[in-house]
C-alpha cells in the first residue's frame, strides 16, 4: 500500500479548521443542551400500560405553579420523561408531580425519579472541565517523557481537535450533554490518544532506524501506510461494539455511545492528519530523535 497521505494534509487541515470554527461558533451562540446532572432540577420517568397521553399529563401538572415543565416520550411511546427546574429549596419536587398526577387519576409506574440541587450541578460542571484539562496535561507529560515534545504537541492538538468537534456536534444537534457523555468524552481523549500514540510510535521507529533514508515527508508517509490498516481495523471493531451499544443499550447509553462513535471516527482521522501536520510544521527530523536517544526501546522485549 502506498497512499501519499501528506499530500492531502492541507485539505485535512482545511476541513478540520472549518469544523472547529463551526463548533466554536455554535457553542458560543447556541451553547450546549446540558443535562440534569449539570443544571440541577427534577426528572421523573413514568411508564404507562399503553401509549401515554402527553397532553393529559401536561394539563394535569400545569396546575402546579411552575412554568418550565418539559414532558416528552423517552425511548418508547409508553414511557414518559418529565423534567423541570425548581426553585432554590425545591419546594416543588418529584413528589409534588406524583401527587398531582395521582389526583388527576393519570399516574403510571414511576420507574425513576431524580432530584439534583442546582448548586451540585454547577460543581459537577466545573469538575468536568477540570478533569479534561488535567487529563490533557498528564498525557502531555507522559508523551514528552516517552517520546519527544513535538509528538506531545501533535497528540494534544489531536485531542483538542477531537473534543471540540464532538462538543460542536452536540451543540448543533441539540443532543443532551450529561454526565455519561462527559465520561464518553474523556474516553475519547483516551482513544484518540491511543491512535496518536500508535502513529507516533511508528514514525519514531522509522526516524530512528538508520537503514531508512529520505525526507521527513517520505518517512512519515511510510509510517502512515504501515499503521493505516491497523487504524482502520481497530476503529472498525470499536465501532462494531458501539453499534451494539446503540442498538441494545437503551436510551440512557444512547448519547454516550454516540459521543464515543464520533470520537472513534474523528480520533482516527486526527491521528492521521492532525498529528502528522503538527510534526511537519514543527520540522521533525532524524536529528530530533538522536537528542532523545535515551529512549528505552530495547528494554521492552518480551523474552
Amino acid at each position, binding site marked *: 500500500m502506498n497512499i501519499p497521505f501528506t499530500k492531502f494534509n492541507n485539505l485535512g487541515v482545511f476541513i478540520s479548521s472549518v469544523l472547529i470554527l463551526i463548533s466554536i461558533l455554535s457553542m458560543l451562540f447556541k451553547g450546549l443542551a446540558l443535562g440534569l446532572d449539570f443544571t440541577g432540577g427534577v426528572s421523573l*420517568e413514568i*411508564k404507562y400500560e399503553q401509549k401515554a397521553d402527553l397532553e393529559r399529563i401536561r394539563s394535569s401538572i400545569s*396546575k*402546579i405553579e411552575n412554568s418550565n415543565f418539559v414532558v416528552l416520550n423517552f425511548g418508547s411511546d409508553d414511557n414518559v420523561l418529565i423534567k423541570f427546574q425548581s426553585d432554590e*429549596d425545591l*419546594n*416543588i419536587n*418529584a*413528589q*409534588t408531580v406524583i*401527587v398531582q398526577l395521582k*389526583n388527576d387519576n393519570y399516574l403510571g409506574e*414511576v*420507574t425513576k*425519579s*431524580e432530584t*439534583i440541587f442546582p448548586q*451540585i450541578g454547577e460543581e*459537577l460542571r466545573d469538575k468536568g472541565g*477540570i*478533569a479534561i484539562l*488535567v*487529563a490533557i496535561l*498528564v498525557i502531555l507529560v*507522559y508523551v514528552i517523557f*516517552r517520546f519527544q515534545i513535538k509528538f506531545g504537541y501533535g497528540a494534544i492538538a489531536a485531542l483538542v481537535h477531537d473534543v471540540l468537534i464532538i462538543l460542536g456536534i452536540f451543540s448543533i444537534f441539540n443532543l443532551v450533554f450529561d*454526565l*455519561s457523555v*462527559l*465520561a464518553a468524552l*474523556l*474516553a475519547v*481523549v*483516551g*482513544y484518540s*490518544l*491511543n491512535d496518536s*500514540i*500508535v502513529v507516533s*510510535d*511508528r514514525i519514531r521507529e522509522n526516524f530512528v532506524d538508520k537503514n531508512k533514508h529520505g525526507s521527513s515527508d517520505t518517512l512519515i508517509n511510510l509510517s502512515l501506510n504501515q*499503521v493505516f490498516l*491497523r487504524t482502520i481495523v*481497530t476503529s472498525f*471493531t*470499536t*465501532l*462494531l*461494539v*458501539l*453499534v*451494539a451499544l446503540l442498538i*441494545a*443499550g*437503551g436510551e*440512557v*447509553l444512547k448519547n454516550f*455511545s454516540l459521543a464515543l462513535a464520533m470520537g472513534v471516527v474523528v480520533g482516527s482521522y486526527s491521528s492521521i492528519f492532525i498529528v502528522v501536520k503538527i510534526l511537519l510544521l514543527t520540522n521533525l527530523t532524524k536529528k530530533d530523535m538522536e537528542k532523545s536517544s535515551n529512549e528505552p526501546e530495547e528494554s*521492552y522485549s518480551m*523474552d
Partner: protein
Amino acid sequence: MNRFKIWQNFLISTVLFVGIIFSLPNFFPTNPALQVASSNSSIFFDASAKEEIEKLLKKNNVIIDKIENVENALQITLKSVNDQLTARRLIADYSNGEFIIALNSVATTPNWLKDLGGKPLNLGLDLAGGVHFLLEVDTERYSTERLSSEGASLLEEFSKRGINSNYKSSRDEITLNFTSLNNVTEAKKYLDQNNFSVSGSKYDLIQNENSINLRYTSNYLAEIVDYAVDQNLVALRNRVNELGVSEPIVQREGKSRIVVELPGVQDSASAKKIIGKTANLEFRLEAKSNASFLRKDKFFYKNQPSSSAFLEKKIILSGDSVTNAQSSFDENGRPQVNISLDISGGRAMQEATKDNIGRRLGVLLIEEKTKTFFDENNEVLQESYVEKSIISNATIQDVLGTSFRITGLSNSYEASDLALLLRAGALAAPMKFVEEQTIGPTLGQENITKGLNSVIIGFILVFIFMLIRYRLFGIAANFALIFNLVLITAVMSLIGATLTLPGIAGIVLTVGMAVDANVLIFARISEEIRSKSEVQLAIKNGFSKAFGTIMDANITTLLVALILYAIGTGPIKGFAITLSIGIVTSIFTAILVTRGIINIMYGYRKVERLNI
C-alpha cells in the same frame, strides 16, 4: 521454535483457572426476596409476627420459599418476581407505612464456592433498583446554632459579673447587645481574657458602640464542619443499619457531603423519614418556675403532645456528644436507658449537674419535617419546618458524667425507642438533602437486560469479524477475548466493585478496544512475513515489536481512566472502574494468552507458510 517455558504456561493456566472460579458465582441464578424491617424499633419480628406475615402471603397465593430473621429484619425468599412484587404490596398495605421493605435477591452460590470466597458482582442502583441520597451539612444553620448556644453561656457569664446584655442571632453571626459603653468594655475584657479575640483563634470579633459581633472564622468553621461530617457518618450508618437493608452504602463525599444508597428500597419517602430524620438532640435543664421568659422555651412532649414543659434556653450538650445508648433493665427489673457521652460531653454534663441535683433534665428531639397539603385550588403545597419535642424529662439524682442512665420509663418499648432516638438521632450537625434518586425494579431489570444484550451483540460482531479477517489467528484472539471477559468479571467480583450500566458500557468498549493489541501484533507478524522472515521468527518479532506500542497506548488510556475515577461520581466512577480493569486484563490476555495459544498452534512444528 516458539514455546513458553513450563512456568510461563503454568502461570497463564493458573490465572485463567482462578479467573474462572471467581467469575462462576455470577452464573448461578438469584432468587427474588424481600427484606422487611421496621421503622419503629418497638415492633419486633418475633415468631408471631412472622406467622402473621406468612399467613397473609399464603392467603393471597404467594409461594414462600423461605422466611427467616436476618439481624433486625425479616427476610422472605420467594419463587418469582411477580410474587415478590405482590408480597411487597401486601406487606406495605398491611404495615401501613411502618415497615421499610427492600426488594433484593438472594444469591444461590453453592457452599464450596462461598468457602473459597466467591461471590457474585455487586449491582449498582441503576441495575438493582433502589434509592440514592446525597446529604449536605447545613453549614449556615449549624454555625448559627452553635453560636447561639455559646451566646447563651456568655450571657450567663456576663450576668455573673454584673454585665447586663442580651443577644440576637442572624445568619452566621450573633450580636451581643449591651446597655452601656462601660458594659461593652467590661465584656470585651472578659472575652479577651478568655481568648476570644486572639488572632488565628476560633472567632472573628467586631466591637461596635454598644454591641459586639461574634462569628466563626472560616478556618474554624471548616474544621468543625469536617468533624461534624465524620460524626454524622457514624450516626447515619447506625440509622441505615437499623433499616436492615443488605449492602447499603454510606460514604463521605468531599468536604461536607454524605452519600447514602439503599439497593432494593423503593419507598423513598419512608427511607427518607429514617435517614433524613435530620434529628438532633439537645440536653437542657428544665427552667425554674421563676425564670424570665427570655431564658426559657416551651416545648411539648413527643409521646403526649397535649402536655408541655419549659426548658432553659442554654444547651448543655447536643446529640453529637452521645456515643452510645442502650435499653436495659435496672436491678428491680424496670426498663431503663444507659447513655454514654464522649469526654467533653461528660465534662459539660458534670459541670451542669453538680449544682442542680433534684432539678429535671430535659432531652429535646429536633426534627426537620415536610408538610404536604392542598390549597383551595387543589394545588399541592409543601412546607418544611422544624419540630422540637421533649423525649425525656427526668430528675437528676446525682452528678452525672460520661455515663449515666434514665430510669422511670413506663415500659421496655418506650426504653428501646428512646435508646434508638438517642443513638440514631445523634446528628452532630443538621443536614439537608441535595440529591435524591429512586430507581424502580422494572427499570433495573430492563437495564440489566439491555447491558447484557449489548455485551453479547458487541462480542459476537467482533468475534465474527476477527474470524473472517485473521482466520486461525482470529481464533486465538477470540479465545483471548473470552478470557478477558472472564477475568474482568472475576476481578470485579473479587474486589467487590460495583457494576453499573455505564460500567457495562465500559466492558463493551473494552471488547472493541482489546482486540487492538492483537491487531497490532498480527499486523507486525504479516509485515515480518512480507519482508521474508522465517515463520517462527516472524511470530516472535511480531510480538516483541508490537509490545512497546501496546504498552504506550494502554498506559495512556489507563491514565485517563484513573483520572476519570478520581474526579468522577456515580456513573463516571462505574465506567472508570471497568475501563481500568479491562485495560489491565486485556494487556494480559491479548499478549500472553494469545501468544500461548499461537505457540500451541504453531510452536511445536515446522511451519512453511503463514496465513495471516
